[in-house]
């Protein structure tokens, strides 16, 4: 029952690892996505300013008196001011011929009126963003094509990108941490459902084999269904074995009683001494068998009940008094007195059938070994702990065997000649253990055995 199951991996760890791994991948994707989006936006921003600048230059182009004039507005370059002081290059071409600016800046292809092109390229060892734009001017009977290339270095842009990357990284890390916390929380709530089920299984009384009715998450329903069906079968088979024990006890005891009464009747009829002796031996053997069978079944029953302890609120004094009354005739046959002492009432929560069995065995034992005309004292008290003490004035337990006597089928050396199976004290011991108590055997200093059932 208490064997620890073979453990392979942990659902919680697997869940947490999967979620955190997923979060890490998502965080990296988020970082890359934000960065590339921001890079596009930042580049778009630079392109827009370059467009505006080049547009204002083109706009300033005019043909006056047949001469091309480009009066570059001050704002055209002023708007290209950046925090990093990016360098600016431009070139103006008329019909493919360079007329002003930096002649290293080439316009690779003729630019159509509305179709401006952007390119990232190199100029004087620095990477620049270049816009190429064109415009057709119509003068008096003359048409001319103006092309303007405008380039700007990307220091401010890369600075912005650094900043954006940093912020995106913070965003990614923040997202990851949040997701990690969430995944821990999710894992523990999910596993919490399992733990709740485990607790409710553990907390159940030994006799409680009823199905689980509390709502559980859908994923756990099959488990609970299997558990319920397992317990249903267990309940059924337990019921069967209880029935079997009762049936067996009945079946064995009844024929033995019949055999005994026949033997008694025959004993009265035969007169020859050796025959009577034989019959007496037979009756004693039958008594012994009957008692052994009874105790064996009692023990089996007790073993079964002890595994599924069913506690009821009872009064130990009432229980003991009842037993004393029932056993008084047997005691009188042996000329013994049973005396009940101790508290007036000792309430206790335990299995009454088991306790009754244990106490009866204890008293039985005392009756067997007590000398004629003596008193067996049964003491029930709640202080210092709940205990039932049975003491007699017999020979006491052999001191060297006192620890072995509660083992199954173990009998004391001085028991020869006394009817017994060796199960009486074992039963009392099992009952004590099932209730979380102990059975203590001792010899009184003034002589006689003393058995204490502490609960």
């Amino acid at each position, binding site marked *: 029952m208490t064997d620890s199951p073979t453990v392979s991996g942990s659902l919680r760890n697997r869940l947490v690892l999967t979620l955190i791994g997923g979060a890490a991948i998502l965080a990296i994707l988020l970082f890359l996505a934000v960065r590339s989006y921001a890079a596009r936006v930042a580049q778009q921003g630079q392109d827009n300013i370059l467009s505006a600048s080049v547009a204002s230059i083109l706009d300033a182009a005019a043909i006056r008196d047949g001469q091309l*004039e*480009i009066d*570059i507005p*001050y704002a055209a*370059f002023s708007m290209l*001011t950046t925090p990093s*002081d990016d360098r*600016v290059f431009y070139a103006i071409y008329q019909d493919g011929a360079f*007329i*002003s600016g930096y002649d290293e800046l080439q316009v690779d292809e003729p630019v159509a009126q509305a179709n401006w092109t952007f390119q990232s390229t190199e100029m004087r060892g620095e990477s620049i963003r270049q816009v190429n734009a064109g415009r057709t001017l119509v003068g008096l009977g003359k048409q001319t094509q103006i092309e303007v290339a405008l380039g700007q270095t990307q220091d401010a842009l890369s600075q912005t990108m650094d900043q954006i990357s940093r912020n995106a990284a913070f965003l990614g890390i923040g997202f990851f941490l949040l997701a990690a916390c969430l995944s821990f929380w999710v894992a523990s709530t999910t596993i919490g459902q399992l733990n709740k089920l485990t607790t409710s299984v553990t907390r159940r009384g030994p006799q409680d084999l009823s199905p689980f009715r509390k709502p559980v998450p859908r994923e756990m329903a099959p488990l609970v269904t299997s558990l319920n069906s397992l317990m249903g079968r267990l309940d059924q088979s337990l019921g069967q074995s209880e029935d079997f024990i009762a049936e067996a006890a009945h079946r064995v005891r009844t024929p033995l009683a019949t055999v005994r009464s026949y033997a008694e009747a025959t004993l009265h009829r035969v007169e020859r001494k050796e025959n009577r002796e034989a019959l007496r031996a037979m009756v004693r053997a039958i008594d012994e068998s009957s008692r052994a069978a009874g105790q064996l079944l009692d023990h089996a029953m007790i073993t079964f009940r002890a595994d599924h302890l069913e506690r009821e609120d009872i009064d130990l004094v009432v229980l003991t008094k009842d037993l004393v009354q029932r056993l008084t005739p047997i005691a009188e046959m042996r000329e013994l007195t049973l005396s009940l002492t101790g508290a007036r009432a000792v309430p206790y929560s335990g299995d009454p059938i088991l306790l009754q069995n244990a106490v009866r065995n204890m008293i039985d034992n005392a009756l067997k070994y007590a000398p004629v005309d003596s008193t067996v004292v049964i003491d029930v008290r709640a202080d210092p702990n709940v205990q039932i003490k049975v003491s007699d004035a017999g020979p006491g337990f052999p001191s060297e065997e006192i620890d072995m006597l509660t083992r199954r089928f173990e009998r004391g050396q001085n028991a020869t000649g006394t009817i017994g199976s060796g199960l009486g004290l074992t039963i009392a011991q099992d009952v004590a253990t099932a209730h979380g108590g102990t059975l203590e055997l001792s010899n009184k200093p003034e002589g006689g055995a003393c058995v204490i059932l502490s609960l």
Partner: protein
Amino acid sequence: MRYLIAVILLLLPLCASADDWEERFVFNEGAEGPQLRVISSTDTLLFAPFIEGFVAENPLISVEYLVTGSADIDRRVRANPSAFDVIISSAMDLQLKLANDGFALRLEDVEVPPWTQWHHSLFAFTSEPATIVINRSAFEGRALPETRQDLIEAMRERPDMFRGKIGTYDVRESGLGYLFATQDSRVSETYWRLMEIMGGLRVKLYCCSGDMISDLVEGKIHVAYNVLGSYASAQAEGQDALEVILPSDFQTTMMRTVMVSSATQSVQAAQQFLRYLVSDRPNESTTQSPLPLLVAEDTVSEQETIGLNPALLTFLDSLKRKKFISAWENAVIQ
């Protein structure tokens, strides 16, 4: 005749070695360490205190200081960038174009306010407004002009008084003159009216501030327009006759800029020199310097000063320049 030819032949190498510099001085000559070649548009008289301070702190470095016009600086540096270690000029636009074209070394860790540098390669160290300098004798008993409009009216009132007696930069030759002229023209139409009036009065054109102020001191002209106040104050020392006027309608303020040539052989020394000028100079030099040094915390000057940004390239565009010069010639040369 033969004698003359011999003399010319003898003198030629001297001319070649002098290389037509306006001024040439070597400070701390004979120092063991590297010699810095500094090309500048600032007169030695005004700049010497800086170099003296620098060589006093760095006795191993000698400095050859070469002075020429701002437009000439641009030409010489483009022609032979490795010939100079440090380039100083008052023409911000030409300097910015040099830096933009990659002639300046990028220096990452020079601590200056963002608006006083461009691309970590061009650094400003003075803040100098363009002024009107007049000879008081020409305005005796009259109110001194405070704005360009006042000046226009004064000239209209007494054309005979001012005919041939006004001076300004020849924007075709002076880089700084071109910068001031283009910036003026951006701000107000008054500039063109002023130029037309000056042209009508046969304005005298100068290549450099120095000549203009000398003529003013000598009484050859009464008014000099768009001259650097720093030069005027320095040369007019003890000359009560001269009055330096900051026009109150609008001011055009220039920053003198310095850069380390990207082709320099003495990177370390050149950097040290630049740092000395823009950030590490001793505090007392700010008050004693003949040049009005830039004060980093001065936010007012940030607004009034010509911005160090790519817009300065606009008027350097050949088409734009051609158009501006022809408009200017139309107004001035009549």
